[in-house]
């Protein structure tokens, strides 16, 4: 198996040359940008809202112990069973244990990136449980045997024809490539599953400490049905999802919608604070909340990057990232792609194996500029680079040292510097003969790019010409 870095390089090369993929993504992102900007202007003070959101998340993350205690006490007081998992396998085991106790054969799931993170579907299928993803995009990529392409739009990379093909092949039901008809196919298929399923598994967008509730944001109603019809409901969530107070939702619900999809508010924003109560008509008899660490406490321990735990998984930084838009979501080789994924993946997995993601950035800062909770994303990429390259000796590699020594010799001698630049100007005329070939010393750069020509006149020469000030 290739290393994550080699896989990234190979996939990035392939995807950037795939013009059809790029056109699909550019079209989707173009539509998103228009509505997102309209919605930002709908706020009286969008920048002010970002500051308030960042402040709220600062309080949430920096008081995590107290908030988690309050959150779980409130949940338990109303009959919810709370479970704790330090690792992914532990969380899978807890969920499998619940399924076994319920003798569950069919599980319906609404969208949860955390479940992707711990490869829950694989673990459940191995145990012989049928797992059905109910979010339309997730349903489609599950049929294709693919991971989600994007945090918010899992099937963004697919055209209607590709979706029709997979429906035909796997469901034998695809009347046309019309998005509405395809959606209705999924609706019919999944309605049966909601009713049939023994257990519903959901993710969570927020955990409200004050009231002991989880909050789920969605458009399709699939999470609503997942939480309504099966007899047992399980919510899997990272420990960092905390919001301190119920009223914090007033700000976070519309901000997530604006950044995630360009809506004012998504269709369903729902809070769950327990199993069915005695005065309620329906709902699950049991409600389990599984809280997952999985190295989030490592991010918490890093005061420089602690703010990364405030991420609300809106996907806005992916959408604006020039690298993401060209290499695509699957190239990252990790559940959390794009800029924020490049920040947290080296923490959640391994710094050395995933450090290449920190270089998959032009450091343009568009991610930091758009982040609704003010995470210092592109500087964190720089910090990851520093952390990854300051190991054992604390020194750069041998060849880097040699190159900088040579550079030092030239740069310290103005005569030599002038000579070298003149020489460069002369030799660059012949560069066209070897450009991009193995003979080209700058091949790594010029294979896919042009080397800008060295100016015909240096600043020094120009200054001299202007009137001999020297």
């Amino acid at each position: 198996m290739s290393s994550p870095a080699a896989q990234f390089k190979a996939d990035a090369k392939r995807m950037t040359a795939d013009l059809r993929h790029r056109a699909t993504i550019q079209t989707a992102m173009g539509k998103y940008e228009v509505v997102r900007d309209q919605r930002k202007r709908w706020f009286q003070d969008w920048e002010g809202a970002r500051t308030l959101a960042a402040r709220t998340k600062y309080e949430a993350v920096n008081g995590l112990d107290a908030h988690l205690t309050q959150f779980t006490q409130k949940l338990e007081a109303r009959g919810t069973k709370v479970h704790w998992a330090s690792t992914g396998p532990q969380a899978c085991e807890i969920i499998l244990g619940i399924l076994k106790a319920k003798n569950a054969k069919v599980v319906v799931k609404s969208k949860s990136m955390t479940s992707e993170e711990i490869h829950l579907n694989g673990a459940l299928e191995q145990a012989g449980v049928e797992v059905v993803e109910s979010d339309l995009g997730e349903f489609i990529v599950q049929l294709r045997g693919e991971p989600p392409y994007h945090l918010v739009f899992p099937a963004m990379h697919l055209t209607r024809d590709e979706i029709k093909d997979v429906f035909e092949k796997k469901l034998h039901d695809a009347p046309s490539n019309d998005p509405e008809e395809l959606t209705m196919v999924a609706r019919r298929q999944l309605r049966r599953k909601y009713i049939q399923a023994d257990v519903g598994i959901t993710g969570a967008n927020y955990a409200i400490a004050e009231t002991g509730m989880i909050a789920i944001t969605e458009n399709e109603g699939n999470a609503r049905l997942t939480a309504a019809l099966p007899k047992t409901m399980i919510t899997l969530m990272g420990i960092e999802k905390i919001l301190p107070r119920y009223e914090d939702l007033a700000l976070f619900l519309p901000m997530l919608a604006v950044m995630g999809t360009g809506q004012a508010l998504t269709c369903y924003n729902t809070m769950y604070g327990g199993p069915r109560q005695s005065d309620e008509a329906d709902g699950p008899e049991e409600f389990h909340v599984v809280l997952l660490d999985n190295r989030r406490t490592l991010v918490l321990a890093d005061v420089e990057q602690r703010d990364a735990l405030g991420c609300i998984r809106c996907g806005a930084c992916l959408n604006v990232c020039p690298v993401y838009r060209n290499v695509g979501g699957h190239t990252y080789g990790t559940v959390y792609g794009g800029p924020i994924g490049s920040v947290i993946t080296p923490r959640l997995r391994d710094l050395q194996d995933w450090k290449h993601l920190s270089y998959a950035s032009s450091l343009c800062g568009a991610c930091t500029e758009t982040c609704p909770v003010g995470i210092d994303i592109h500087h964190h990429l720089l910090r990851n680079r520093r952390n990854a390259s300051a190991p054992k000796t604390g020194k750069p590699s041998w060849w880097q040292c040699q190159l900088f020594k040579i550079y030092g010799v030239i740069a310290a001698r103005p005569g030599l510097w002038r000579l070298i630049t003149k020489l460069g100007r002369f030799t660059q005329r012949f560069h066209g003969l070897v450009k991009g070939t193995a003979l080209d010393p700058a091949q790594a750069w010029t294979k896919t790019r042009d080397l800008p020509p060295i100016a015909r006149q240096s600043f020094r020469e120009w200054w001299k010409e202007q009137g001999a000030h020297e």
Partner: protein
Amino acid sequence: MSERDNIFVRIKEALTLQAPARHGHGLPTIEEQRRVMPPVGQTEAELFELFAKNVTDLRATFKRVKDLSEVAAELRALRDAEKWQRVATHRGAIAESQARELALPLMVVEENSEKHELEQCDVGITECDALVAQTGTVLVTSRTAGGRALTCLPPHHVVLARREQMVPDLPAAMQLVQQKFGDKYPSMISFITGASRTGDIERILVLGAHGPKQLTIICCDA
């Protein structure tokens, strides 16, 4: 030690170091929230106008009527236009009696919450807790709108609201929930903004992904 203890040890250890607050700290007040959030009008007329506009933009339907007899007339018109066969509702001050007037087979979820049967109903008629002008949202709960499935499973959700249920904005809606229920929250509180939708295929909007394809809100003045 349990995993809970292990996790708390790591959290407490991590939090001994203080992180810089680059954007400031302290939880915002409701006034601070309102200063940045989308504007809403002052008068009741403005709120109703804004709510109606938002609901139309969401491709849902909003009707404001004078009294309960007009509510019944609206429901009858919908029944005939859409050829409803079966109706689902819940026990409530107006929902159940209004649903009965339709003279169709009726499912009252408190008496029968069989999900196969609910799925066969053409419409779910429910009450609500509030209407939010700022976003065109209907607030329902599992206690006041017939549990969890009634507002989501039938293909058409009809909401019966009262004039005084209109609130200006989301902060007010959050306050209302806390004041109304105190510590005894329903197990589900849902902010419904338009009918169920998806854009997962080429970002093209399709209504009726998994939940209702239609949302109708009838607000009664008297």
